[in-house]
């Protein structure tokens, strides 16, 4: 029986490639399978090549696979580009009218399935953009499933658009299903094991999980200027602002965005911004301001390949150093880098509590891969949330907003509207009431007050998570979105007799020197695996702990490390 299948669809941008991936992933998720869907597309709205692959497994899955079992090609280019990724005997669904493919044009035996997409659409007066819907019907048959699983998803997906649209989509999907059934009956795959996941799952990307986590963390104000790869946050907040009880504002630029968020925070609303590297570059001065004013603010930075505009729709982990050092002057910060959708939810939620507790900027460091890959999130996870309380403290008068006598460096906040608790939130150096000062003693204690918070933060930072076997032959060290692919690869590497371990940082900064040093020093062979060209995690580890990780596996072509690449390289080490 088969327990692990990769289905993929490619075609021109504008032809619903992405949404077919989503629908198939949801269909199989509902049926108890593990699913993960990842996409590749250029920075174009129409005309470029769009590609989505959905990996379907009987149990939980951590990462996509490159090798394809079923390829739906809505144009010739899809096959040209992905021919080399086809598994032995893979099914290739295409339309002869696009190009009459022959077996000889492939490296190894495959099964060619020509479907007259345009002809079928004509029968139903369907629009050319609905080829993907036929493809979904075809896929259900090839995957050995009943069409009803898909039609339920179609119903839910399109119900907002009216009964007519629902019926049209179901009819067209059924047309595809019936066509393969009539012409390729033998290809109905009955060898696929049933999915075994019982707990209800949601299918979403990390941006959406960050959005939900933020809400669970009491977020009330978001100002987000659009930028790939965090755009999915926007409709979630904007379309549902009333239901969610929040204000979402589209600012004129990222500088305005973060300044608005800081303003809202000063007035007592938990607030956030989200952006990518270029937008974040514009925010940096205000990050420093949040540091000195001691204002809570959460910044979700979705990394993509730079420098500058770079490759907007591809992935990289190139901004760790930027975030570490962003903002002039010295002030505390925390950097969290979720490894998957569940961590995106929980860490986003936590970020707001941390911001509230330590009154300083908190970063969520995500990337294109994690933000635009569709993952499963156990619905149960959403039950965890915080009260989202903000602390408007009353205190002995006169109120000292920046009381420097506390050990932790944390002083009480007040909010406008609170009588006798006026203060100045001042970007200049200030005294305990917020009034500007340049006096040497006050300057010194205020710097120290802010940095004491770093010690308080260190005391609550959890260690990195360790996965895999004791006495490992090789130990991967990674942060953020590499978690899934490494975990996935480890299963196979282990089978080859190599003992393997992953030390994964989702709490990236600050690093607690002794803990991490001890953890790393007992490992035989450390490999830092990163999605950048300079080994930014390895250099942070070295700076924070003195431990040098000599071996670095770095990838910076804009494409996420794949399971296969890791396995290949690990095997080569034997």
């Amino acid at each position, binding site marked *: 029986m088969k327990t692990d299948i990769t289905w993929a669809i490619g075609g021109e941008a504008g032809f619903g490639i992405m949404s077919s991936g989503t629908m198939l992933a*949801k269909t199989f998720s509902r049926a108890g399978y593990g699913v993960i869907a990842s996409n590749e597309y250029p920075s174009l709205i129409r005309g470029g090549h769009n590609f989505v692959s959905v990996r379907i497994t009987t149990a939980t899955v951590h990462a996509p696979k490159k090798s394809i079992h079923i390829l739906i090609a809505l144009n010739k280019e899809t096959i040209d580009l992905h021919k080399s990724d086809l598994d032995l005997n893979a099914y290739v669904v295409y339309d002869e009218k696009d190009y009459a493919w022959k077996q000889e044009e492939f490296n190894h035996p495959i099964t060619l399935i020509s479907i007259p997409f345009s002809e079928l659409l004509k029968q139903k007066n369907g629009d050319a953009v609905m080829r993907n819907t036929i493809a979904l019907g075809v896929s259900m048959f090839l995957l050995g499933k009943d069409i009803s699983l898909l039609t339920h998803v179609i119903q839910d997906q399109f119900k907002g658009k009216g009964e007519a649209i629902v019926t049209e989509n179901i009819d067209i999907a059924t047309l595809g299903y019936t066509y393969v059934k009539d012409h390729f009956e033998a290809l109905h795959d009955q060898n696929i094991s049933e999915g075994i996941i019982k707990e209800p799952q949601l299918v979403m990307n990390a941006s959406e999980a960050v959005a939900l986590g933020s809400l669970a963390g009491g977020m009330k*104000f978001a100002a987000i200027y659009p930028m790939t790869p965090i755009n999915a946050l926007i409709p979630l907040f904007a379309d549902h602002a009333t239901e*969610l009880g929040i204000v979402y504002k589209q600012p004129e630029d990222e500088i305005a965005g973060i300044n608005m968020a800081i*303003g809202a925070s000063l*007035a*007592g609303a938990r607030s956030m911004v989200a952006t990518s590297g270029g937008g974040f570059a514009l925010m940096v001065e*205000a990050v420093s301001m949040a540091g000195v004013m001691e204002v809570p603010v959460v910044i979700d930075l979705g990394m993509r390949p730079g420098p500058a505009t770079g490759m907007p729709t591809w992935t990289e982990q190139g901004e760790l150093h930027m975030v570490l050092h962003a903002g002039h002057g010295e002030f505390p910060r925390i950097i969290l880098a979720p490894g998957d959708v569940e961590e995106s939810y929980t860490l986003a939620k936590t970020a707001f509590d941390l911001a509230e507790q330590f009154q300083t900027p908190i970063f969520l460091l995500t990337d294109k891969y994690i933000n635009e890959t569709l993952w499963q999130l156990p619905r149960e996870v959403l039950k965890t949330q915080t009260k989202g309380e903000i602390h408007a403290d009353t205190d002995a008068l006169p109120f000292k907003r920046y009381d420097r006598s506390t050990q932790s460096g944390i002083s009480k906040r007040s909010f*406008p509207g609170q009588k006798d608790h006026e203060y100045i939130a001042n970007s*200049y150096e200030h005294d305990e009431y917020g*009034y500007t000062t340049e006096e040497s003693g006050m300057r010194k204690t205020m710097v120290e007050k802010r940095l004491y918070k770093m010690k308080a933060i260190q005391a609550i930072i959890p260690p990195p998570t360790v996965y895999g076997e004791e006495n490992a032959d090789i130990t991967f060290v990674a942060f953020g979105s590499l978690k899934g692919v490494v975990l996935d690869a480890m299963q196979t590497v282990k089978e080859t007799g190599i003992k393997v371990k992953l030390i994964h940082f989702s709490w990236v900064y600050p690093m607690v020197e002794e803990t991490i040093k001890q953890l790393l020093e007992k490992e035989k062979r450390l490999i830092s695996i990163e999605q950048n060209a300079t080994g930014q995690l390895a250099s942070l580890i070295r700076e924070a702990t003195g431990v040098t990780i000599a071996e670095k596996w770095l990838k910076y072509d804009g494409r996420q490390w794949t399971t296969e690449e890791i396995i290949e390289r690990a095997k080569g080490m034997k």
Partner: protein
Amino acid sequence: MKEDQFLTATKPTWCPGCGNFGIWMALKNALTKLAIPRENIVIVYGVGCHGNMRDWMNVYGVEGLHGRALPVAQGIKLANPNLTVIAITGDGDCLGEGGNHFIHAAKRNPNITVLVHNNEVYGLTTGQASPTAQIGMVTKSTPTGVVDPPFTPSSLGIFAGATFAARGFTGDIPFLAELIRAAIIHKGFSVVDMLQPCVTFDKIHTYQWYRERIQKVNISEESLGDKKQSIELASTFGEKIPIGVLHKRVENTSEDREIVLKNGPLSLLPTVSVDTLELLSQFQ
């Protein structure tokens, strides 16, 4: 005389004779007359000589970054519309570094008041030309005279969508106080362009220079809403400089457009139960 409730322990550090004194007095008079509880006032300051006022003004204050007062002010107002939010900005702060924020704030029409300390120079950085500096004016950054034509803050504001605009002169404190009061009462984005002599770095635009040119205008309520006429008046700057309320009309504010704010300040709204949200169906 009533005690000045806004005083702090710090005394102003502006140059003796600086136009900022008059603005400070006028603002305090306007606030006193309005009798807004002190704790409900938030002043967001730009960075410049004008912004130094924060240290001698006992209200909730935010001294932000150069040019960025308006986004902070909007964030505060969107989080708690019950507050009276005032931005103290400079001509450089508001129209140079912060020009984009100014036009976009005007476009949104939040119920906040922007007081532009218009001294034609960057005072705090010792006297370079500001975006309102007149052609020919010799400054530290324009040794042979300004060559690029200036802005007038109110005309730009009206054009972009401000629903209230006025121009005042810091040499006439009672009149300026009235304008500031009217601007604060106005429900919407109000701009007051305040002609402010910088006695240290601008030897041309003295109190006397302004006194010879300003002319009070008294426009009827009906014609105050005429954008074209208001822009015309607001851009008149030379031998004659009209002062007074130049523009006024009623529009929805950006806070009006946020339905959740009808339930009160954001800080008082409960955190949603994420696991029961209807929108979760889109992820199934």
